């Protein structure tokens, strides 16, 4: 869907993005992870030509974006930013309708679309359609920002630290809303963040940037397995590396095939080892029962297996 081919961006002497080659498959969430100043936002902004590459090229659907007219290109790509940037003098409905109106949709179709989108992002259309942005909480505003990006049904979404300014509870709510919307719509999402937890929660594939260079890419699990040295280890935090790793492994993989005792706390079969550890700590239990589900026959997870070297 998106291909970066040897892309660089220089500002005078400063190299913001340094020869990055990366492919984002259609329908996946690719998270660009890095510290501030690592060039992740700059790399993302090259996709809709808010930044032009100094070298290399960016392909969307096999076509070089440099050949596209910038405004037309941007109308076909959803764009969500940390500070949301809703137009303060427009009502929520008008904000969401921005791109459809630019594309010349008729009023009835725009109105229907606004209601569908508000519903999709979990806001009551009748209640929110006619509000002004200053009447929204931070989380509600970013939900509207997400609806606005999805308005003209673009196949591709660019999200630049969209949830970083929100408090943790709201952030988790929006992360799961985004996962649901992704599952429902199958959009390709390029998501920029500096938050490791967020990256692991959302990513199908992870791309780690450090000082403009792409230092690692792949699935969360494979990245954490190999993250023994260098910038990746630093970015993930070497103290919590093992803990993050647990989040990428399914609990069922370590379960012993023994009949679960009835008095044990229950863990859903699709839970990760991190969730298993949390439940053990919360319940004060060294064993957890995992019920049968699908191909998994059910079993018991033991503390000893969790901490055993793998």
């Amino acid at each position, binding site marked *: 869907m998106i291909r970066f081919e040897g892309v660089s961006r220089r500002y005078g002497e400063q190299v913001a993005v340094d020869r990055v080659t990366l492919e984002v498959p259609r329908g996946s969430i690719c998270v660009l992870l890095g510290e501030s100043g690592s060039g992740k936002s700059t790399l993302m902004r090259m996709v*809709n030509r*808010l930044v032009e590459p100094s070298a290399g090229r960016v392909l969307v659907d096999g076509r070089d974006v440099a050949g596209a007219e*910038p*405004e*037309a*290109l*941007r*109308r076909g790509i959803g*764009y969500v*930013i940390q*500070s*949301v*940037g*809703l*137009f*303060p*003098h427009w009502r929520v409905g008008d904000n969401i309708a*921005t*791109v459809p109106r*630019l594309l010349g949709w008729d009023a009835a179709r725009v109105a229907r679309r606004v209601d569908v989108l508000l519903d999709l992002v979990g806001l009551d259309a009748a209640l929110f359609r006619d509000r002004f942005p200053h009447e929204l909480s931070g989380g509600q505003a970013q939900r509207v*920002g997400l609806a*606005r990006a999805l308005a003209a049904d673009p196949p591709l979404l*660019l999200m630049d630290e969209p949830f970083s300014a929100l408090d943790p509870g709201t952030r988790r709510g929006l992360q799961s809303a985004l996962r649901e919307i992704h599952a429902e719509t199958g959009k390709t999402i390029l998501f920029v963040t500096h938050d490791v937890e967020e990256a692991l929660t959302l990513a199908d594939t992870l791309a780690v940037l450090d000082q403009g260079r792409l230092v690692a890419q792949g699935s969360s699990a494979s990245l954490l397995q190999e993250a023994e040295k260098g910038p990746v280890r630093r970015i993930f935090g070497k103290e919590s590396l093992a803990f993050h790793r647990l989040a990428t492994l399914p609990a069922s993989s370590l379960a012993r095939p023994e009949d679960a005792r009835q008095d044990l706390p229950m863990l859903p079969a699709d839970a990760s080892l991190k969730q298993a550890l949390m439940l053990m700590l919360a319940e004060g239990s060294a064993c957890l029962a995992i019920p049968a589900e699908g191909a998994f026959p059910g079993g018991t997870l033991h503390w000893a297996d969790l901490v055993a070297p793998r």
Partner: protein
Amino acid sequence: MEPQPVAVLHATERREASAAPREATAVAVLTALAALAPFLLGFLSVAPNRLLSPRLVPLPVTTATTLCLGLFLVACLAVMLLARRAPLLNWAEAAAALALCSLVAVIGLAAREALQGASPVARAAPAAGLWVAMLLLALAAGCCAAGRSGTPRNFMALSVLGLAVLWAAGALADLSLAREAMARGGEIRLAFWQHLALAGGALFLALAVALPLSLLALRRSRVEALLMAVANGFQVIPSIALFGLLMGPLAALAAWAPALRGWGIGGIGPAPAVLGISTYLLLPLASAFLAGLRVASPAVIDAARGQGLTEGAILRQLRLPLGLGVMAGGVRVAAVQAIGLATLAALIGGGGLGALVFQGIGQLATDLILLGVLPVVALSLLADGGCAALQAALERRR
């Protein structure tokens, strides 16, 4: 014991509502002084003709003047009492306007009495006490307005209305100022329209320069630095000096292309005046335009670009509507400044109300100076009020 705090709260609220507003004391002192001033400093002065110095005369006592004087004193007392209650501040302001109008009526009627049997060129003018009293009443009304966080609109409107009624009834016809105005009616009207043309022309010219330059400066920081440096630089040149500096180049221009003279362009006259005034308006206009164009935050602009709005659409749909209130504020400052500066145009033959002022200064004729100054003050207040209303309307629309 839950309801008790509620009761206490109600009690304090009631006490606050009935307490005198903070401004009550100031209003009382100002109004008392206003009531005393004419008695201490004199009501009326009479001069044998318009150029000789006037002398104080005692207030002629007739039924009409006594009635009006009584009304003045009662109105002053009403101002002091009404200002002690916050909800009645509006009425205190109205009472101040009544006091002002009745005082003017006293002096108008007194002038008629004083001039009876005198030479036709004799002039009767308000004495110092009257001017001081009017100023103090205006200040008291201002305090009342401040007490309800507003502008003294009621006072101004009622005063203007009252004075207009007195004028129409002929009660003021024997005052020196009115006689001067009658004698020079045509001249004043011409000067008034010239003044408006000077100020309006300068404002228009400055707008035509500041708006495109501000738009350019938004993109290029070097243009912004240059624009602000030039606009600031002009402010330190005294206006008379600038008018003088413009004479040379404009005279040379007119000599080089004589056709321009037909348009009024030359070393003296309205052209250098309009040009000079407009340079002073660049600073308030350019700084307000730049600030207005930046009311739309960088985040909003980034989101707009990212959605595929063109730069033109960003200007029309975001920067202009969001910044209109701030920009109107700049036009307001510039308009008032233009009306004030246009007074100086008379010094280089540009005409306007300043011509009356300088002529009056030359002749030591106070009435003539006032006939130039009062319309300038009225125009400034009108322009300020008009722009303020426009600004409020634009900001409410957001």
